[in-house]
């Protein structure tokens, strides 16, 4: 019974914790401009994150060590540093976007300008990361993040032409006013948003924090293979409501407030309130995950004590790094840079950094010295290699597409 509850809780938190500011904004933008014609990119991204998260979870459960730790040991300090450099930069950018996202969501509730919320949110994130237990933080924010299910309810209440939506999703089609380079730019952005590097670092480090063993592999797989795809459905629902309400109205999403509008149209004030609660929980949860990931990756590479399972005094450098990243994130946001623009950059730069993150994971998951009998099988390697090819293509294409399309304009 305890095991079933663990699976149930894990799946729920995986669903609630799947969507972050990158998914909210990118799916809103894509739905409002391309309808469901880019749904395939989200689906491909979700399958990819499932494949690599399962590998990371397995590595953590079998070796009791997190990914960066092993990457440096297995591939040496040069590749480890390259991996750290790319991933840390993208994770920090994502962290800035998430804190900005929380502030924007609070602005929608209170009408108080988001910049006034930034210091408050920064302190709140620090307090959570300093004081809250790992499991409490993960479960509470993941559960509240389930409020985003309201987007699926709203889509159902809007009574869309399901056949038309399915047809859009099943065909390679773009609306007349858009160009193919912009279409592919957003395909890469959606892929990057779904496969953000911090997700695997947080997942594997979380496994070490929660002291997974090979007995936990089954529960871990259930969380990944059920929770993540259901979380991906929330992303599709966000794009779906934007397709039904915003696209016909000629509205192209460029603010968080616009993302919530279709829910207000479908479900009124209460639905909108639930959606905004979901915005706050999803972005706050992701802010905590990205903040921790910054500390995890650097601490694991340089080899100093890390984790929330040890007292802060014993992991002083780890907590100092987190504090420093919070100060940097708040400082960048206080320059009045647009958090939505930071989000757009973060998802595209995620795509660029993907090979640096995923290639080493594939190598470590194939090493029998670390993995023993849980080394990658043929299926994991075939799928992993296909996705490695895809992340390389997305990574190479991201900057040219960003320049050619002037960031999707």
């Amino acid at each position: 019974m305890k095991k079933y509850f663990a699976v149930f809780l894990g799946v729920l938190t995986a669903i609630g914790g799947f969507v972050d500011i990158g998914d909210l904004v990118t799916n809103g933008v894509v739905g409002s401009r391309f309808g469901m014609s880019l749904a395939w990119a989200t689906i491909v991204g979700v399958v990819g994150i499932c494949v690599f998260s399962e590998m990371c979870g397995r590595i953590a459960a079998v070796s009791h060590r997190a990914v960066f730790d092993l990457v440096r040991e297995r591939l040496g300090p040069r590749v480890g540093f390259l991996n750290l450099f790319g991933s840390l930069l993208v994770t920090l950018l994502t962290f800035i976007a998430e804190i900005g996202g929380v502030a924007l969501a609070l602005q929608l509730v209170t009408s108080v300008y988001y910049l006034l919320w930034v210091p408050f949110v920064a302190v709140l994130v620090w307090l959570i990361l300093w004081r809250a237990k790992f499991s409490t933080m993960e479960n509470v924010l993941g559960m509240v993040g389930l409020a985003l299910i309201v987007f699926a309810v709203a889509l159902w209440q809007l009574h869309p032409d399901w056949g038309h939506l399915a047809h859009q999703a099943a065909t390679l089609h773009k609306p007349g006013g858009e160009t193919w380079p912009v279409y592919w730019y957003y395909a890469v952005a959606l892929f990057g948003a779904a496969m953000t590097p911090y997700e695997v670092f947080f997942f594997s480090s979380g496994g070490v924090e929660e002291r997974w063993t090979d007995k936990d592999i089954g529960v871990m797989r259930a969380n990944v293979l059920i929770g993540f795809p259901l979380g991906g459905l929330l992303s599709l629902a966000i794009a779906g409501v934007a397709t039904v309400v915003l696209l016909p109205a000629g509205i192209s999403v460029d603010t968080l407030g616009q993302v919530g509008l279709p829910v207000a149209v479908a479900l009124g004030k209460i639905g909108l309130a639930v959606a905004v609660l979901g915005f706050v929980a999803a972005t706050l949860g992701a802010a905590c995950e990205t903040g921790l990931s910054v500390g995890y990756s650097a601490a694991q590479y340089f080899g100093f004590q890390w984790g929330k399972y040890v007292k802060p005094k014993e992991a002083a450098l780890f907590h100092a790094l987190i504090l420093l990243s919070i100060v940097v994130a708040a400082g960048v946001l206080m320059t009045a840079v647009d958090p939505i623009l930071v989000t757009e950059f973060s998802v595209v730069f995620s795509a660029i950094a993907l090979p640096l993150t995923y290639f080493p994971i594939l190598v470590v998951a194939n090493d029998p010295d670390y993995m023993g009998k849980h080394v990658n099988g043929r299926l994991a390697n075939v799928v992993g290699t296909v996705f490695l090819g895809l992340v390389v293509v997305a990574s190479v294409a991201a900057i040219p597409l960003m320049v050619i399309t002037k960031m999707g304009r």
Partner: protein
Amino acid sequence: MYFGYSRVVLPNASPEPGPFRPGRVIALILLLSCVLSASACGTVEESDPEDWDESARVALGDASSQLSTVRLILETERRDDTWHGYAVVVLADAEKSAGKDADTVSALQAPPDRTKLSSKVSDLLTRASDLVQQARETVVAHHEVDQKLLQQLQSLSDRLDTEEKSLR
């Protein structure tokens, strides 16, 4: 043991601190920053007709999107489907964005053969910005949103769309 991943061995793959030099990475970042900064330091030049068309098209499309957003939020506000603060934030964002669109085009020096078109586009964008401001003032003052304002938003949005399509 498939695909050779297990045999991947990289030069200097050792757990000991390797000879990598963070200084090189920092130097590369500084060099890239200098190149990017220098590329943004051009003097003001008359824009190329195609570039001007592109900027005007983007500004018109964005302004039209803002007008449609305002129309939708006013309709939800009338039906009491949103709370006042949310509507004000969405309207303030739309106002800021519409103002930026108007500024972008008016700040561009139009090519000689686009002078007339430039003043037409600027006029439309200014009207869009003013109309969004009017909508925001109406909601902030808790005045009732009348049908006339909604019609004005629709009609101006249609005009912006027509103008945007003509520039494609």
